[in-house]
């Protein structure tokens, strides 16, 4: 379960895929999905499970939260968890040697924690210091770990082997993982998850209205967006773009 094993596994998978890719290219098929998503049948099944589980339980709660909680409270919750994420971002800025970004994110955490009621008000954004968005999945990417297969996990949503590993490690990068009071810690995890799900609602509704095949649309959008973040907003053109 360590990074080396994961890296080795996906290298093995990459070699096999290279052959598949060659065959697919010779056959004139679109090769991109097969390369990024070798577990597509399993992922599609899990996408279907998610439609039921998320659609019946999680999404209605997130929707109710958005519709019935006063907007200032939603903003405060988003800012609070945003501030925690900024803290995680600082660690990852340093791990990637991005000192200017680290300075930016440290400024945000100091301002918002000290002068924004412990992070409830995002005054740093108001002051024009944009929110950072580094995470451990991106750090692994910056260190040269391959992306690994795309995964769709019920409730959790789209990820990759690399990003999923990053998310697990990240549970212990922020302060929440170290709160000794278990009920409090779990409550914070719960509200954090609700906040994250609520924030995904608008993007999700746009994707669903746009897509002919929502599964493929979400996969493509997720991988493109992660690639964009990995290259700090300036990704080189994709080799298979035509």
């Amino acid at each position, binding site marked *: 379960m360590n990074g080396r094993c994961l890296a080795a596994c996906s290298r093995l998978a990459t070699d096999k895929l290279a052959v598949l890719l060659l065959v697919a290219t010779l056959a004139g098929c679109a090769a991109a999905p097969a390369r990024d998503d070798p577990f597509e049948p399993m992922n599609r099944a899990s996408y279907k499970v998610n439609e039921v589980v998320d659609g019946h339980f999680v999404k209605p709660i997130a929707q109710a939260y958005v519709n019935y909680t006063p907007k200032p409270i939603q903003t405060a919750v988003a800012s609070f968890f945003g501030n925690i994420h900024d803290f995680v971002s600082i660690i990852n800025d340093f791990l990637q040697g991005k000192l200017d970004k680290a300075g930016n994110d440290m400024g945000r955490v100091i301002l918002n924690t000290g002068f924004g009621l412990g992070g409830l008000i995002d005054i740093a954004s108001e002051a024009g210091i944009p929110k950072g968005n580094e995470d451990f999945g991106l750090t692994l990417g910056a260190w040269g770990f391959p992306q690994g297969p795309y995964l769709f996990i019920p409730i959790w949503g789209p990820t990759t082997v690399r990003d999923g590993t990053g998310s697990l490690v990240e549970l212990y990068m922020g302060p929440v993982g170290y709160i000794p009071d278990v009920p409090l810690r779990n409550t914070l995890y719960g509200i954090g998850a609700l906040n994250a799900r609520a924030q995904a609602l608008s993007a999700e509704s746009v994707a669903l*209205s746009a897509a002919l095949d929502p599964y493929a649309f979400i996969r493509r959008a997720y991988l493109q967006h992660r690639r964009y973040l990995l290259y700090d907003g300036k990704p080189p053109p994709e080799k298979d773009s035509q």
Partner: protein
Amino acid sequence: MSLLRPSMCRFVPIGAWRAFAIAIVGFALAAFVQPLAHAAAGEAPDVLVKRVTEEVLGLIKSDAKIQAGDQARIRDVIESKLTPYFDFDRMTALAAGRGWRNATPEQKKMLADQFKTLLVRTYSGALNQYRDQKIAYLPLRADAGATDVTVRTQVQRPGQAPVQIDYSMEKTSDGWKAYDVVVGGVSLVTNYREEFTAEIQRGGIDGLIKALEAKNSGAPAK
């Protein structure tokens, strides 16, 4: 009178009142077509994006019907204010790839029309979702003579990282037109290329047109 050149003399018999009337109509017309004239007269692409975005957002925020959640009204606004600045033929060609080159003119037209409908529907929903957010317009980085530029904007949301929305724009004979929108690094055209390729493999161009029609008529997605 002797100062007038012969060609101008033809206008003299019209009569002052008529000339006046023509001038009034002219001014009125100019006021109506001003947005179009702007575009044709070389309005810079970043200026155009800002003007059109602010205009549409202003309309959405002030329109009572839209505030009440009238999707059809939002679509009207987008159809009249926004679509003139998009090159749907080019977007469709880019998304359909090789399939486009092999399509007949009728198929091309049907495909572009259906794609346009889908994009307008999607964009209406998106604008409605994001209408309360603040938009920043980033400085344009392009040479003065460039004919293909990227106009960058940013949607700012409290507690979340800003979302960058880039418009790929090309200078055409009737002003700048967008042929791709890139949201947080996700290119609309590239995203559709994968889906379009899959549909074309399954049922050809006609299959793709049918799939888009089904989607646009609100039939449940597969």
